[in-house]
Each structure stands twice: as structure tokens, then as C-alpha cells.
């Protein structure tokens, strides 16, 4: 007996966004990445085709960080000392694009140099994060944006307390921005409005609804993402942006991933647990609508790529 499957037809559509510019497009990237364009909920291919796969970014830093887990140090080795080397290794590990996180120790010259060296070492599209302090972010990102005009980088991280300078320089230099709000549908919407009101087109804004790691509030991020995506499909224009989330950053902050000693025996093998922590955090977020997941460990990248591939291996 053939069953009639209930299908949802939505009025709204997620904006299609392209990151990175090739030589023909005025940049130097070997390829650009396109995300978004969905007209239904994630991976429901029986309702509507999903035009673009979610992508995986690997996070690297402009200088080696003391507080990264020894497991990450083991995975990346000496490449962590040199952003260009790290970028190459990340590309080999299967990244679709890179996140370069600048640090407080970087001078503006250091920052520009690090960004240029990464752009030189890898042809992947690039997201650049400031160190996370408003003044320093603005100081570094403006110079980075000017020095990379036309590359279509994503500059981040815009928050409600500090977005104007980053948005202005993105507008002036042909870049995009990452707009982060703390796990709340209305705050996300509000920041998108503020940013687009400045004149940056919505197809150059990627929203970051923030997530928690598995066990550390993932359910809030997960549900906010589902609600944002539902609102977008229902036609709310200011939520129709692709989403970026940072499961790598969050998961590797958790004790479960970060440390191997002084933890309960019931947590099991450290390395396998750490990879599971990052992978499961990312998998849940991919299911709830993430368009870009930023990861840290190469093994997690491989597994999450496997998830994305399987979610697309469905006859329409």
C-alpha cells in the first residue's frame, strides 16, 4: 500500500553565499565555496534538493597556543609553529576552508603577515578571527582586510558590542563577516539587522548562533539553530542566512576532550573520547542546520565529512 508522505512546502529560502574569490573573481583562491540556498530542513531530499553541502573549516592559529590539548599538539605537531605549514596540513586533512585565529600577541604587521602566509600556502577560502578583544580585533582586522582586498575572506567575530568597524572594513574591501550572538533567535536576528542596516548585503553575512559542546549546553545551540532555520523557511528574511558554528573550539574546551588525567575511569580512553566529543558535537549541529562547522582535530574532520557524505547519499 503506497503511503502518502506529508511534505512541507516553505515560502522562505536560505541565502546563497560564496566565500573566497578565485583569480577570475578578483582574488587568489584556487576555488571558492558556496553554502546555503536551502528551501527545506536539512537533508530532507525528498522534499527539496539541498543545493550545497555543509562544509568543514579547520581552525589554525597565527601562533602556537599554550592552552590547546596535548592531543591536538600531537596531531598537528611542528606545523603549529608556523601558520603556513599548519594551513597546508589542514588542507591535506580535508578542510574545505580554513579559519585563522589571530592572537593578542600579534602586532598588526604580524597579523597581516600570518594571513598572507596562509593565503600563500593554501588555495582554500579563509575565515580570519580577531583575538576576541574589541579594540585589538578592530586594529588587526582592518589592516588584514585592506591587505587582502578582493579575496572574499570572512572576518570575525562581529558581536553586538563590536561590529561596526569590522562590517565597514568588510564592505570597503569586498569581504564577508561572521555575526555571533549568544544562543538566542531574536538576538541573532537583531544583529543581522544592525549589520545589514550599515549597508553590507545579507549575502555577505554568515550567522554564528553560538553553540555549547556536548554536555555543556549543546541542546540550547541545537534548538536555537532549528528554530532559526524554521523561522527562515517560514519567510523571516533576517534569519535566512547560512550558519557557522564552532564545535571544535567548544568541544576542546571541555574537560572530556582536553585532559587525560584525573578524570573518572568511566570516561574511557582519552583520545577516542576526545574525538567522539568533537565529532558528536559537530554531528548534532550538522543535523540541526549548520552550514559551516569549524573543527580542530584531523580525525574529527574525516568522520564529520563521512557524516555529511552519507547524509547526501540519498535518492531524491
Amino acid at each position: 500500500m503506497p503511503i502518502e508522505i506529508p511534505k512541507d512546502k516553505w515560502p522562505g529560502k536560505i541565502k546563497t553565499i560564496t566565500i573566497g574569490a578565485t583569480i577570475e573573481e578578483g582574488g587568489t583562491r584556487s576555488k571558492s565555496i558556496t553554502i546555503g540556498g536551502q528551501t527545506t530542513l536539512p537533508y530532507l531530499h525528498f522534499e527539496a534538493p539541498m543545493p550545497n553541502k555543509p562544509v568543514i573549516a579547520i581552525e589554525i592559529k597565527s601562533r602556537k597556543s599554550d592552552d590547546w590539548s596535548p592531543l591536538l599538539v600531537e596531531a598537528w605537531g611542528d606545523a603549529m609553529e608556523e601558520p603556513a605549514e599548519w594551513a597546508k596540513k589542514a588542507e591535506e586533512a580535508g578542510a574545505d576552508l580554513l579559519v585563522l585565529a589571530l592572537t593578542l600577541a600579534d602586532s598588526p604587521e604580524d597579523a597581516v603577515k600570518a594571513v598572507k602566509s596562509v593565503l600563500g600556502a593554501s588555495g582554500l577560502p579563509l575565515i580570519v578571527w580577531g583575538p576576541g578583544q574589541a579594540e585589538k580585533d578592530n586594529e588587526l582586522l582592518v589592516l588584514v582586510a585592506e591587505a587582502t582586498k578582493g579575496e572574499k575572506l570572512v572576518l570575525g567575530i562581529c558581536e553586538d558590542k563590536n561590529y561596526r568597524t569590522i562590517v565597514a572594513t568588510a564592505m570597503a574591501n569586498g569581504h564577508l563577516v561572521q555575526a555571533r550572538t549568544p544562543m538566542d533567535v531574536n538576538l541573532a536576528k537583531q544583529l543581522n539587522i544592525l549589520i545589514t542596516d550599515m549597508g553590507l548585503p545579507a549575502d555577505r553575512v554568515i550567522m554564528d548562533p553560538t553553540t555549547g559542546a556536548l554536555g555543556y549546553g549543546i541542546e540550547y545551540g541545537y534548538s536555537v539553530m532549528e528554530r532559526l532555520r524554521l523561522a527562515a523557511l517560514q519567510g523571516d528574511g533576517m534569519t535566512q542566512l547560512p550558519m557557522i558554528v564552532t564545535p571544535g573550539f567548544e568541544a576542546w574546551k571541555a574537560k572530556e576532550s582536553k585532559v587525560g588525567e584525573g578524570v573518572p575511569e568511566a570516561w574511557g580512553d582519552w583520545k577516542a573520547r576526545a574525538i567522539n566529543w568533537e565529532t558528536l558535537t559537530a554531528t548534532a549541529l550538522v543535523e540541526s542546520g549548520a552550514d559551516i562547522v569549524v573543527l580542530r582535530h584531523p580525525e574529527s574532520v574525516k568522520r564529520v565529512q563521512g557524516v555529511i557524505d552519507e547524509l547526501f547519499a540519498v535518492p531524491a
Partner: protein
Amino acid sequence: MPLSGIQIYKLLPQTNCKECSFPTCLAFAMKLAAKQVELSACPYVSEASKKQLAESAAPPVRLITLKANGTEVKVGNEVCMFRHEKTFYNKPGLFLRLKASDPELAQKAAAADAYKVNYVGMDFSLDGFAVEADSDASTGSAQVLTAAVKTIRGVSKRPLILIGSDAAVLDSALGLLAGEQTLIYTADSSNYEAMADIAKKHKAALVLKADSLDALADLTPKVQAKGVEDMVLDLGGKNMGEWLTRSTQVRRLALKANFRTLGYPTIFFAGQAGPEKEAVYAAQAIAKYAGFVVLDTFKPELIYPLLVLRENIYTDPQKPIQVQPGIYEINSPKPESPVLITTNFSITYFSVANEVEGSGLPAWLVVTDAEGMSVLTAWAAGKFDAERIAKAVKGFDLASKVSKKRIILPGHVAVLSGELEEELSDWEIRVGPREAVDLPAFMKQALN
């Protein structure tokens, strides 16, 4: 579809006899609609009405309970597609599959049965075992399976799933499990009659398997006609994408189309594509509507994250996870280490605990009972005031643990410091930063 109070009223005797203890039939109908009373409280309702009311009250996804002498697992009875719409109610059962012929069966089952892990004050464990008979129907498999069930019952009281395709083999093993509610895996179009017979005989639930939802929908009424009501569906699917599609479709059919034929919980085998994919397969099943998730691997580093994910996804969004109030030791504090105060909203606790933990600095973290609210919300609601903080400090007997009687208040409630000094006159009260992220710097600079 659930009936409204008025619709229910029309099916009642309308005599206002009060024997249900409500003043009128309408009042009783309203209570029925709100699911606050049972229909059986009305002695005069007609059989026809009873039937109609029972049908309308049946949950769109049938509740299936597996039970042993020790524990039970309930799945199904779900009412929404997304957890934020209401909540997901019954956590999927996590079962470990073991082969009946496994020579290490007893050790494996005992280890998995004993596994217990604590997450924010709650103890989690596996829910039960799926015991698989030898696949070939040789004459010995019945003995092997019954021996295996005996072995497991020697080390575990958790509910069982019995896996096999030969009803006769399963029948003898089920005979050992009288008084329990077991799940039988699996019936398909070729053997459903024999399987339904043993399910009925042993009051067991039965998994049905078919290649498509259409074929499954053909099968459930046939099994129901054999007298089996408790069914579970194996949706098949070669990969995560196919399973997500089918699982979403089945949940939607049940909730949106009130399609009772497929209104049953599902079962998913997470190890089907090998151990490397087991974690993500299980994770998707947990997030996307599975009723039972069967694992092939028992490893704490796999089980723990899955149990946490299940807890997170099935947390009622209206009732945030609360941390057990108490004193938490971070980085092995000594008596002179600083004392930090916060509330028992899980995210608040995690933000503070993570920052301090990450800094490597030892501290005592006092978590007060603020009814699961964050610092500012709890303060505004009167759940995080000087009196409550003082009560926690005294109640947890903090003074017996520390030598330096100094308390760091969250910066957001600096206003409480005066009152707290009065409540705790022999303690020094300091105001810390507003945000957890600034704690490490504060502890390094201001607390020496």
C-alpha cells in the same frame, strides 16, 4: 486526534451523577481532555463511547515498555518533531548486542551491566542487552540461546531484546523470561505469523522489518490482526541519509497525519557500518527519533558521550538541566584556595567551572540552589540572595573545608555583598568579575 472537552462531553452520559467526584459531566470532560483523570472514574459511560475515547486518546507513537525484574525502559509516546516545540519525553533505550555463542558472554555482559557514569550529579548506565541467536537454524541454536539468556540473567537484571529469525528458537528462550517484557527481533513478511504467535504467547513486543515504509505499513495491520499490539519498526536504510529520511517520515506520519499504521517507535543498529561509524550513527539516531539504539561496541569512551547526548537532547527545554547544589572541587583545592559562588543553572555552572578548570587554578566552587536559574535571573527572581547564599555556605559546612574565610561573589550581584557580610559576619566578601571568562585573570591578579 485528541478530542476537546466539549467533544468528550458529548460522549458522556450527561446525567451529572457526580459519582466520578466531579460536579458535572462537563467538568469531568474538561479534566479528561487535560488528561488529569481516567475515564474509568465514570461508571456509566457506554462501550461505544469508551472505544471512541480510547482511540482518540491513544498516543500517535505507541508507548512500548520493556521490563525485567530490575529495570524498565519506556520508549514512544512522543508528541513533537522538534524538542523546542514541547520536549522529547522517553529517551531511546541503549542496548548492547551480544552473540549468544560468544564464549566471553558472561564477562562482557557483567562489565556492561556494571557500567555507571556520573554526569552533573546524575548516574547513567546502559539499558539492556540484545542477545543474538546463531543465524543458521541448526538444532543447537535454541540451547545456545537459552544458555545465553541464563548467563545474562546471572549477571544482569536489565531488559532484553532477543534477536533471531526462527520463532521456535526464540520461543524456548522467551520461556525463561516469564514476567518480563522482552522485545523480539525480527519479523518480516516471510515469518511474521510464527513471530506474532510467540510474541502473543510471551506478551513480548515485536520488531517488524521491511525494505520500505509501504511494505512496513502492509505488515503492521497483519501482525495486529494476530493479536500483537506492541510493535517496533526497523526502518532499514543503507546509510545515515536514508535512515534520517525514513525516521523523519515515520514521525511525521504519526504526528501530522495521525497515521496509526506506522505509529510505533523505531529500532536502529548503530554498528551496522562498522565501529568507526558507530558513534555518529548512534548520535543521529538519538537526535532523530529512534526508540531503541543497539550498539555493537561496549567502550566507555563511546557510551559516555552517547549517554550525555541523549540526556541533552531529551532535556525538557522548559526545565533547564540543574546541577546538584553543593561544593565542587576544581583542580584539587587546598584549604587556602579561593571560594567562588554561583548558581545551579547548568550552563552557568559549566561556564564558571570550565574557566576555572582551564586556568589550572585550584578553587572551591559553591553551587547554590537557585532553582536552575542563571545568576542575574535568579537574583531578579529572589532565588539567589544573601540569605540563600549564607544558607548554602552554612549548610555545606564550607568552614570545615577552608582556612581562608573569603567568598567571591559574581560581579552581577555585587549589590548583595553588604547583606551577605551581615549574614556571614566572620567571612570576607569580595566581588568578582561579571563574566566567567574573566575569572582566571581575577583569580591571578586580585586574589593573592
